[in-house]
């Protein structure tokens, strides 16, 4: 069917993070940035500012005081969390943009819920495992399936075909891709985030989130493994959200990479259930 090159060419049609989001991402990674600088960059886009403030005051964070200015949101929640919020707003926009082509008919709201859930699950698992910068995990979780958004935009017809197979035959999305011999969402997604100039760890967790065993030697091995487990767990809890209907396949190497014991895993699930109850503001953006 469609060759990878052809598809990648079509990635041009996808919205890329605008100048403001790009600047937010780069400021949040610059060690010399101050809260004021980042706040100023966000404030250029009033709508983005408002959405970020709304999320910052959401039940998920449960901050005891109401945050009214961006500067405070950045100080209290941290640069990276605010960056994540900006990234969430952007990804949401990309997913729900009006397509020039026909509609693939997939449940975008469900797919978005999957993105948010995997972001929260990755962050929660990182927290339990003692990963110091859990905010990075949120972004990696949020973007892991961005390739599916790309496929939906580039070829709604193909997406429709894939979805038909997965939903009717109770198959996993990746199996359907193999059946139809189309470039996988992991590959397309990785190309996309690379094009967006996101850090390498995002590129790797997008391309490796079904095969953490291939990234054992990567500096990002733990991040990829965490995103993989978060994805599997969320697929078990909410089957179909990610357009996958088969039995989620757990890659055992991921458990080894993290030295994950069943006891920690069940603690993770318990804490995750609590957190997922507080993410309504993210889902209904």
């Amino acid at each position: 069917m469609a060759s990878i090159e052809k598809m990648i060419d079509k990635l041009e049609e996808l919205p890329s993070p605008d100048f403001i989001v790009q600047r937010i991402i780069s400021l949040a990674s610059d060690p010399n940035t101050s809260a004021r600088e980042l706040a100023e960059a966000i404030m250029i886009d009033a709508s983005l500012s408002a959405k970020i403030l709304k999320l910052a005051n959401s039940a998920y964070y449960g901050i005891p005081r109401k945050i009214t200015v961006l500067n405070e949101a950045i100080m209290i929640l941290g640069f990276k969390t605010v960056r994540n919020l900006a990234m969430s707003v952007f990804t949401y926009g990309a997913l729900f943009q009006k397509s020039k082509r026909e509609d693939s008919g997939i449940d975008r709201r469900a797919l978005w819920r999957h993105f948010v859930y995997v972001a929260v699950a990755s962050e929660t698992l990182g927290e339990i495992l003692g990963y110091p910068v859990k905010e990075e995990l949120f972004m990696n979780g949020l973007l892991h399936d961005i390739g599916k958004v790309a496929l939906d935009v580039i070829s709604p017809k193909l997406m429709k075909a894939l979805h038909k197979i997965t939903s009717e035959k109770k198959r996993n999305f990746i199996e359907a891709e193999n059946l139809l011999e189309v470039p996988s969402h992991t590959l397309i997604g990785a190309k996309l985030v690379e094009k967006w100039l996101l850090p390498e760890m995002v590129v790797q967790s997008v391309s490796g989130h079904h095969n953490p065993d291939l990234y054992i030697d990567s500096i990002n091995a733990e991040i990829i493994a965490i995103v993989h487990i978060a994805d599997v767990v969320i697929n078990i809890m909410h089957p179909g959200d990610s357009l996958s209907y088969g039995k989620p396949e757990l890659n055992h190497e991921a458990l080894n990479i993290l030295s994950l014991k069943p006891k920690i895993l069940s603690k993770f699930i318990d804490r995750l259930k609590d957190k997922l109850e507080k993410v309504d503001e993210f889902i209904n953006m």
Partner: protein
Amino acid sequence: MAESIETTSGKKIITLFSSFIMELNNIKSRDQILSALVRILRKIVSPKWVVILDERKKLPLSFPKDDDHNYMRFSELIDWAMENNSHSFYPVGDEIVGLLPMIRAGEIRGIIILGLNEEPKVEEIDALRVFSFLSSTVAENIMLLQELTEKNRLVEETMNYLHSILDTFPEMVIVVSQEGEIVYMNRRFVEESNNDEIKEKAMQIAREVIETGTRRTGEIESDGQFYSIVAEPLKYYSTTQAVTTIMNITSTKELEKLKQIDRMKAEFIANISHELRTPLAAIKAYSETILNSLEEIDIDTLKDFTKTIYEESQHLENLLNELLDFSKMERKALKMERRNVNVVEVIKSAVDSMMEYANSNKVKLFFESNDDVIEAYVDPTRIRQVALNLISNAIKYSKKEAENKYVRVKLEKKEDTFLLLVEDNGVGVPKDKLGKIFEKFYRVDSSLTYEVSGTGLGLSIVKEIVELHGGRVWVESEEGKGSTFNVEIPLSLEGNDGQH
């Protein structure tokens, strides 16, 4: 430009790490690691003040010292930061308050609260987070180590405590391993284990316990002391050991003996009252009869009666003498009046005086001696008493209905001693009673059946007299066949004053 910034901050981080690691080398307690952390924090962001709380929001450690900066005013924020594992900075008035939860494996271990003059940069925040993570990990490990050390100390103390308890035991306690080695011994055993006889016996019992897996007991006499040994099996991992207790029960045995003597004394009193009343009753009855029928009584009957009265009073006198001797013996006041005498004559006269008693019991009594004269330095009255006692006993304990009853008295001169044998074919002494018949109050038929009369003092008086002469007395006997009483007494004193 960007590159040079990164290089600079990279170097700074490495410098901070180096000094932190150097500090870690000398750290022994959680407080020390927290102090080191405070020093590092000051190098990163130069806070105006720092407060560190533990997971229960207690135990504040602060910089500057002894000023908690009223941290409770941030209580709500502290709760939030700890609940959400969130590193955050709040503008409060003109300062920025930083809240850095210390997290270890998803669990909050404490929180660092900083007061800053200005907003920290991304790099500074990241560095603060990394160091707070590192310190909580190190602090946790130090606490684990302290806990472990404390537990070890506790185990050791408990063991010492148990050892001290075992050491106070009056018993010797050892534990023998399956390989037959002593793996534990209490102090008493260490002090007394020079007795190989006891040790060997204890080990033998312990080996039996290990082989059979059941409790075993034993007793041993060594150096005049009695020991009781009790061994119990003890499962230790997959092996069987034997907890072996060795107890000196000599005093317990003596106590038992005293109790027995007490019992025998009570029996003796009942017995002696009976013994005294029998002749007295006869005397009273006969003399009463004579008194009431003095006119009609004929001379032969009168002679018969008075003879009985005489014999009974003589019996009474003997009994009283025996009692008197015994009383002297008890008070250690029995004295020997020694002189050089011919023992043959002394014994012969005793045999002669018992002849009539023997005849009346149909017992053949004879005396033999290879020598006519055996001269010895003894108390003749007492030696006669010994002979009389043994002979009368031999006659008394003859078989009632048997034929050919005899008592043979034999005197032999040895090198420095003379040997007196009194042999009979009477009832004999049961084997288990042999050791006891010389004990005071002891009668083989200790029951109050009065089948055979006697105070039960005779043989103990014999033994005392013989021993006061520096001699010894023993018995060979077979139940139902007869007994031979042997008395061996030195011919002269050899420095023995005979008073004890």
